[in-house]
Structures are given as C-alpha cells and as structure tokens.
C-alpha cells in the first residue's frame, strides 16, 4: 500500500535528516567532516535511555539528552577541533581522523559503561497502533515526524530570525570576512555544535524507541549514511540536508517495500550518491542558491 510506504519513508527520512543535520551545520562553518556526529547519536541514545529508565519521562529524556550531548559537542570543539584547526596549514585529513577516533571512542565508552549487550527501549505510549482507514500508524512514528518538524522549525527560526543565526550564515559563507566585520566566529561554531549534536542525540533516541533497542554499535550505519546525505544535500546546506534525508529514506523504503532490492537496503544511499555525483556533482541543492 503506497500511502503506508510514503508515511514510512517520511518517518525514516526525518531521522536521517536529523542525524545528518549536525554534520551539515559543522561542515558549513568549519569545513570539516565530523564523523563524530554519529557518536553524538550513540551518546544521545544512551543518555536518553538512562534518563527515561530513571524518570519514566520521555520529555525529560529528550530535553536533557539533547542538552548534555550539545554541551559535550561544544567542549569537543573547544578542546579538540579548535586546537587542531588553529595550527597553520593543517591538512583536512587531520580533523577527519580525529573525528573517526572520537566516534570509535564513543561506541567503546558505551560498551564499557553500559555493557556490550542490547538495551531495551520500552517506551509506553498507551496504545500500540492507531488505525486510520487502511493506514497503520505506530505512535512512535507520529512522535518522530512531529518532533523532527518541530526541531527543524526551531533551526529555521534560529538561522533566519536571530542575530546569532545571521552570524552563522555569514560565517558559513565567508569566515574570514565575517571575522573582519566583527563577528566572533567561535559563537557561530558553538551554535553548530549545540544544535548539531543536540539533533543527533534526538535522532538516536528516536531510533532507540523505533526499534525498541540500542547497542554500542548503533552509530555504525548512520556514520557513513550520514556522509552520503550531506554530500547529496550539497555539503553545508541545511535545506539540502532535509531534502536529501527524506529522499534517501523514501527510496530505501520504496525499494524494500516492493521487493526491488536485490542488494542490501543500506547500500541504497551510496548508489544514489554515486548517481547524483555522476550527474550533478554539486549535490541536489547547490550551496549558491539557499541558506
């Protein structure tokens, strides 16, 4: 049933977009590929799981997990990326390797602290499924779609209607000139990390709820799928990332729903990526015509 699959696709695509948004915001300002963003996704899922286990309150779990993970992001930038990037003539591979290291570290910390096994993410919504006509909706799906829409609305408002957002857009476009006209570009970077890592944390919790489980290896697939989404979205473009995330989510869902996959589902993102790079290397949305 088509409508059902479209809903599925939007839901999965929202999670993808949310996961990749941090990498986009960070690339937009620092021009580095932050694989550790997928580590924020793992950390966020574990923080959320722990808070929910202790309090039974899902709102608190989202709120605090996002805040803690966002703040960790700011600290990681302050004490790891900023010192690396301040060295003269640094090769782009150096921060990339640092971010892979951080990502691996996150998974292993989760393994050490919470144990290697799967943790159940039992969130009780009161009802199991809601039937609307022929459409079957799981409450977690509504949560995911609504919360993602809300977070992206907040992001849009911050970027387009606040002074800090203006600074972010100016810095993303030309960091040197932004500095020279009086912008403390560190604040734009901090904004990228708070929002980016916070969003990744929310995505981690969502996936935990959706599949009712988390493991320390949770971030492995997102760590590379995220890359194809941000490249597809035109590297550093928030709007492009939303579109690319939804697009990949939709294609994956449709192919597996209609048994068109003679290949593993997770490779779809890369096949789409290769095709797009062959046809339109600047990504679906090129950076020059959007924020």
């Amino acid at each position, binding site marked *: 049933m088509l409508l059902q699959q479209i809903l599925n696709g939007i839901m999965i695509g929202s999670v993808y977009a949310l996961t990749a948004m941090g990498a986009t915001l960070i690339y937009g300002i620092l021009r580095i590929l932050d694989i550790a963003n997928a580590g924020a996704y793992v950390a966020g899922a574990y923080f959320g799981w722990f808070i929910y286990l202790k309090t039974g309150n899902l709102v608190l779990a989202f709120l605090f997990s996002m805040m803690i993970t966002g703040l960790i992001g700011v600290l990681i930038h302050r004490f790891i990326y900023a010192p690396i990037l301040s060295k*003269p*003539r640094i090769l782009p591979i150096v921060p990339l390797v640092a971010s892979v290291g951080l990502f691996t570290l996150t998974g292993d910390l989760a393994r050490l602290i919470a144990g290697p096994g799967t943790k159940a993410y039992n969130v009780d919504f009161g009802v199991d499924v809601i039937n609307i006509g022929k459409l079957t909706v799981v409450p977690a799906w509504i949560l995911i779609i609504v919360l993602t829409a809300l977070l992206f609305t907040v992001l849009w408002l911050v970027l387009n209607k606040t*002074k800090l957002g*203006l*600074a972010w*857009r*100016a810095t993303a*476009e*030309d960091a*040197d*000139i*932004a*500095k*020279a*006209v*009086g*912008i*403390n*570009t560190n604040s734009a970077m901090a904004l990228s990390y708070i929002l980016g890592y916070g969003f990744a944390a929310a995505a981690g919790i969502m996936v935990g709820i959706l599949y009712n489980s988390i493991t320390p290896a949770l971030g492995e697939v997102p760590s590379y799928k995220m890359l194809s989404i941000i490249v597809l979205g035109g590297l550093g473009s928030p709007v492009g990332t939303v579109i690319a995330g939804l697009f990949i989510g939709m294609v994956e869902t449709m192919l597996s729903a209609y048994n068109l996959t003679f290949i593993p589902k997770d490779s779809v993102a890369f096949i789409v990526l290769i095709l797009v790079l062959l046809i339109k290397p600047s990504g679906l949305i090129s950076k*020059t*015509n*959007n*924020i």
Partner: protein
Amino acid sequence: MLKIVDLEVAYGQMEVLKKINLEVKKGELVSVIGPNGAGKTTLIKTIMGLKDAKAGQIFIEGKEILGMPAWKRAEMGVGYVPEGRRVFGNLTVEENLRVGCYSLNDTKKIQQNIKKVYELFPRLEERKKQLARTMSGGEQQMLAIGRALVMEPRLLLIDEVSMGLMPIMVNLCFKIIKDLNDQGITVMIVEQNANKALKISHRGYVLETGNIVLEDTVEKLRNNDVVQKAYLGG
C-alpha cells in the same frame, strides 16, 4: 592612528613583507601603491588580523594589536573593504549591513547607521531585499563600503577598490573615499591604480617585492621620476 614597526610576514618559506615600517596619522588618507604581488593585500590582511605576522608590531591608537583576533580589531574601530568586494552573496543587502553592525548592541544606533549608509548609497536602499550576489560589481562595491561604514570605523582599510569596476564607478568610489576622509575617518588604501589613489591622498608609500622603497607626500611622489615611469605612465 596606525603604526607598523618592522613587520615581517611570510607564506611558508616565502617572505612576503620584509621589515615594513609605515604610519598613518589620525585624519590622514594614505595610499600604498605598487605592482601586483608586491604584498599590498598581505599588508592589509595582516593589519586586519586575517594573516599572522612572523615578527614586528602593529599599533592602533597606541595599542599593540598583533595576536588579537580580527573581530576584536573590528570592535576597536578598524573597518575593512576587502579586495574583490566579498559581500555575503546569499544574504540580502540589508542583512549584509546588519552583519556589519554585529559588534553594536544598541538597536537604535544600528538602524541609524544603516540609514546613513542608505543616504550615502540610495541604490542600496532600493535593493535592500535583494540577494547581494544578484547585484552588479559597482553595487557590490558600494555594499562592501557600506558594510564597513555601519560600525563607525575610525580607521578604514580599503583594498583595491577600483578592481573590476567601470571607470564611472571607480571615480565615484574614490570620491566617496575622499568625502569619508574629509568627515574625519582615517583611511589607508592599497591600490594598483596609482594615479587615482595619489590624487585623493595626503601621503603615499611605494611597496615593491615586500619592501617600502619610497615614502613621501603625494606632490613629491607624483613628481618623482621612478614613480612617474613605473606607476603613472609618464
């Protein structure tokens, strides 16, 4: 206002500026002229804080500024009009000017300063909702100057204002720079168009391959044989 002492700047092993000494007094309009690759843009970037110095000192109003980030220098009253304009193309004209006001906190003052720029360049007010990248080169140059003016700089650094502009725009830009200087803003311009630059300046420096080879009042520079031959086409 601006004093540079034994400034050395290098890209890797390559020395671009070798022990430069230069001074711009309060209220002056000073040009630095010289051929392509002499180090003019590097000089202005180092003053602004976009390029690190290897040795030497730079003082703004007596205060040593080397090591300070660019935004602190902007807050101190250094305005910058970069080579090639470099307006924020994906932002509207008005947003570009608001970015320029970033270090100001008083909303009323911000509006006043933007209004002043619109009075200076009515063209910008007509296009305030337009994305900067859709404007002509001349309009972008006005915006780049406006963006530097909104934060009321006491020292204005202008890099190759004439580059890539139609003659009529070049004349307009130089006239505006002269007017701004008459209103009390200290200005340092770096320019390949030596003729036009010297016409509006009080003093000039000639920069060649990283060395200041001449320094004098414009009258004397214009009568100097070497300058006439090399830069004024005489």
